[in-house]
Structure formats: C-alpha cells, structure tokens
C-alpha cells in the first residue's frame, strides 16, 4: 500500500535519470546508510564486526570490481585474486618505502597499481573471448601467486612471503578498534558504490554493456572495443586493488600470498553470480551471502547433527560446506541466472502492482 507511485510525476529527464527514481527507494536507502553509520556501531559486538561486517564490506567492494568486469562488460575473470594481491602488496610497498606516506594514499595508489597491471592482463581480451579469456586471466592469477612468493623485493625480503603492517591512521584518527575499521571500510564502500553506479548508468557503462551484449554491433556504432574493455579491466582492477589493500591492512594486518589465491578469485566470482550479474546491489547481496553462509553452517550443522545423535566433525562441516555451496551455485543459475538482485527486483515489481498479479 505504501509502495505506490501514484501522484508522483517526472517532469524532467533529470528526475527520470536519478539513481533511485522512486522517492520511497531514495529515503529507504538513505535511512539504511545512516543506520549503518550510526545505528550499527551501537548495536553490534566486536565479534560481529571482526567476523562478519568488516569482511563483508571489503568483499562487497571486491565484488563490485568483479561485477563491473564480468557483469557489465561480460569478460569472465578468474584472476580477481591476483588484482587484490597486486593492490595489497603495492600498497604495502608504497607504505614502507616512502616515508610519511599516508595510509589512505598508499591504499589508493595500490589500487592504481592494480589497475595498471589489470590493463596489461586485459590485453588478451582484445583477441580472445569467453572461455579462452577465463584461461588467460588464470595465467595472471598463477603468475601473481608465484611472483609474490618468489620475488623477494615485493615482500621486503621476508622469506615466507608474509608481510605485516601496523595499525593505520587517517588524519590523526588511528584505526585500531573493530568499530573504527568498520566505519573506515563503510565510508570507502559508500563512496565507491556511488561512483560505480554513476559509471554504469552513464556513457561508460553503456559502452561496457554494449561490448558485453554484442561486440560487432558496438564497433559499428563507434565504440572502440579496445578502449571499453581496457577501461573495464582498469576500473575493475582498481576496485579489486583497493579491496585487496583493505583486506591486508584492515582485515588481516599481516598476510601471505595465499590470502589472494585462486580460491579467492572463485569466491568473488560466485558472489557475483549469486548476488546478480550486472547489478550493483548484487555485489552486496552476494558478499553478504558468502560471508554469512560458512558461519551459519558452522553453527548449524553440529546442532542438526546432534538432533540425530551424530557427531559432526570439523572436516565434515567443511565438506558439507562445499556441497551446499556448489549446489547453491547451480541452483541459482537454474532458478534465477540474474541472482538475488533480480529476485529482489521482481519482488519490488510485484509490490508495486500488488494486489494484481500482472
């Protein structure tokens, strides 16, 4: 009943092109953001921040990056983890090698470095498509795994490839408590999400989608595939690089190359599939789903097992996690290839029309 557009008219193209064209949506999102900044810190305990919220925020950011490349530009990547690694290690090097480098600046520079590397590894996309490209991005993944493990300079001569950073600070605000970390990541995520939304609703986003949907036609109307694909790789890698740096600096504190392995790449891809390809909100849904599911299963499975008088070992939990995870991916691909975001949108559509079915 409240979700009605009666009496709301759009009289200019500007009004029609807003991010949230329906006022109810606009207010709801604004309320959500305010709640995230003010309400959540008052309600939630440390464990929640550390185990769920901070990883969720950072992985959302990374998923945004993957979504730009896979969902909007249609270039499958299995090398997202590599971009995160480049971001993290580049940021680390900027921080320790340049005196007085502010943390935020080195994180952003890490992102830029990831973008540069992303462009290089995006070059094969000009020649190959689809499955072949997926393999090309795997090359990037394995190369980066190797480089950060074997080339000592990147890790400041640490033998295991493991590096650590002290707590970071921002204009005198030292980010060390879980709440601080949460707010810092949230701030970055909000800004980056808005930017992503702006990009995809504008000319840039249309070029990406045009390349995704039909590249020959796109060239014929004057879109340069090289420019569009490489910008997608660059922007996507930038997001991933920043997310990688945050993951290292804020979430982990100290890390080794395994933190950004092929498993991470696959995980990010799954977030985008489950959340919704080609939808900004899908990145959040997907990240939330994948962060929460293992925790949920870890809590639930022993309980369920005890109901039937079964001892559920940790190994079994991890195996079952695999099974449920895989099944859910197949399930989503079958039921709704556009992910949770589309389910959400359909639900909203139904609400607008309610009580009529069509």
């Amino acid at each position, binding site marked *: 009943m409240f979700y009605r557009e009666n009496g709301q008219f759009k009289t200019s193209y500007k009004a029609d092109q807003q991010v949230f064209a329906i006022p109810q949506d606009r207010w709801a999102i604004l309320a959500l953001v305010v709640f995230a900044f003010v309400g959540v810190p008052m309600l939630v305990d440390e464990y929640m921040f550390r185990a769920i919220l901070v990883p969720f925020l950072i992985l959302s950011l990374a998923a945004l990056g993957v979504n730009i490349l896979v969902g909007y530009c249609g270039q499958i990547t299995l090398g997202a983890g590599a971009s995160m690694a480049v971001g993290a290690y580049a940021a680390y090097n900027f921080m320790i090698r340049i005196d007085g480098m502010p943390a935020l600046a080195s994180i952003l520079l890490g992102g830029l470095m990831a973008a540069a590397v992303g462009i290089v590894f995006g070059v094969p996309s000009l020649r190959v498509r689809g499955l072949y490209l997926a393999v090309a991005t795997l090359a990037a993944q394995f190369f980066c795994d190797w480089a950060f493990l074997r080339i000592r300079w990147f890790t400041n001569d640490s033998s295991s490839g493991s590096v650590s950073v002290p707590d970071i600070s921002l204009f005198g605000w030292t980010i060390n408590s879980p709440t601080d970390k949460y707010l810092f990541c949230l701030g970055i995520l909000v800004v980056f999400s808005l930017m992503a939304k702006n990009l995809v609703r504008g000319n840039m986003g249309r070029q990406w989608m045009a390349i*995704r*949907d039909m590249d020959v036609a796109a060239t014929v109307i004057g879109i340069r595939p090289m420019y569009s694909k490489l910008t997608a790789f660059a922007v996507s890698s930038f997001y991933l690089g920043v997310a990688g740096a945050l993951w290292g600096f804020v979430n982990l504190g100290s890390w080794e190359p395994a933190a950004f392995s092929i498993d991470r790449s696959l995980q990010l891809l799954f977030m985008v599939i489950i959340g919704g390809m080609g939808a900004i909100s899908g990145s959040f849904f997907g990240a939330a789903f994948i962060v929460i599911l293992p925790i949920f299963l870890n809590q639930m499975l022993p309980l369920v097992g005890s109901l039937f008088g079964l001892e559920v070992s940790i190994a079994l939990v991890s195996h079952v996690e695999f099974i449920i995870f895989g099944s859910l991916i197949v399930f989503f691909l079958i039921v709704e290839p556009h992910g949770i975001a589309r389910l959400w949108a359909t639900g909203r559509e139904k609400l607008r029309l309610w009580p009529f079915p069509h």
Partner: protein
Amino acid sequence: MSGRKIGEVILDLKNISLSFGGVKALQDISFNVLEHEIRAIIGPNGAGKSSMLNVINGVYTPQQGEIIFRGQHHANMDSYGAAKAGLARTFQNIALFKGMSVLDNIMTGRNLKMKANMLQQAFWFGPAQREELEHRAKVEEIIDFLEIQHIRKTPVGRLPYGLQKRVDLARALAMEPQILLLDEPMAGMNVEEKQDMCRFILDVNDQFGTTVVLIEHDMGVVMDISDRVVVLDYGKKIGDGTPDEVRANPDVISAYLGASH
C-alpha cells in the same frame, strides 16, 4: 513529396573484390550512391549483399578495390572510422544489446558525440550530467519519431521482433548519420508493419536528407521506395538502374525475380 534534392555522388565503390578462404563473395563490383537518394541492393540469398554492406562500413576489408566517401579515398575503413565518418547501419539478424533497455540502446548511438571523461562520469558532475541530459533530449526526439515511447524502459530482449527492428533503426538514427545502411529492415514483417517501416525510412530520407542504402527482398517495397537499384548475383553485379529499368532487365528476371513478378 517535399523538396528532397538528389545531389552529387557521396559514396563511390570501385572494383571491390572480397573472398573468404577461397570463396569469392564479391567480384569486381562498382557502383555509386548519390547524396539524399534511396539506393537498394537486391539479389538472391548468398549473392553477397550483406558482405557488400560489411565492406562499406568496414566490418570486412576487401582484397581489392577502393571506397571513395565524400571525395576521400579509403583502401579500407575500420568500423570505428566508418562510424566516425557518418555511416550507420542496422543488421539483418538484429544486433541489439539484449541486456539493456530500449533507451540505453539508443543512447549508445550517441556515444561518439559524448565527451565527458571517466572521472567526471564517476562523480556525475558538471559536463557529464549536462551532456547526459542533452543527449537524452535528442534521443527522446528519435523515440517520438519512431513511436516507441511506450517501450522506453523495456529491456530489448523482451520485445517482439518488429519492435526490435525499429529500435535497431532508432539506434542507427541516433548517430545522425550521413548514410544509413539498412540490412533487410523489413524481413519477417507483415504488410502493415512494412508500411510503417517504409514511412519511417521515407521520412528520415525526406526530413533529415539522410542517404539510404537498403537491402530488401520484398520487391513491392524496393520498387516503390527506392530511387535506384543494384542487383547482385553470386558476387557479381548483374543490373543497375531505376526500378523500372531493373524490372525489365532479362538477366535480373532470370536470376532473381522469376517470371511471376
């Protein structure tokens, strides 16, 4: 008819030959297109009509021959160059961007005219926003012109074939081209829809002075709306002239039209 004036030669194709892996798709074909005219290309399936369009707008590079567009010689043009020079086209098997709305599809046609850089777009400020609104207004004119207001926000993948063809035309028009290349714009349409399409093509030609090069199988349409017709058969040119001349050409009758037409 209004004061549409057929002008000078705008596009001149000289001795074009094209082959793929030994198969000769086009053999030594020459013809020209005059400014503001409607030029039809007809011929049996596999005669090389679509290849001809692909050569004109740079999707294929001919092994031999020359393309002269507005007095400038091109051994070949790439598609991007062709788009920049003012050539737009539609496709035989509709090549719309299926995941995007009608509006976004047409907006992509304005891509070459949009200048805001990525950073401006990311922050959606100043030039980026102004530009977006200006082009939206232009696109809305085209939407009005082709009478597709009601489906503006619909994803094109969901539209019936006939409307998709219209959106394809709208996207090409959004480029404000000098020459519009139409590849079977009326395939799979019934008479009523064909009439609509003819009206749009004639209006575009008439109001904007756009030159039209068109491939079409419906002889009724071709004979009624085109100024001159080229006939291809197995990659060779077998006829060229006004509709009446072509209709009377014995080669064309035996290769293509058949006795009943």
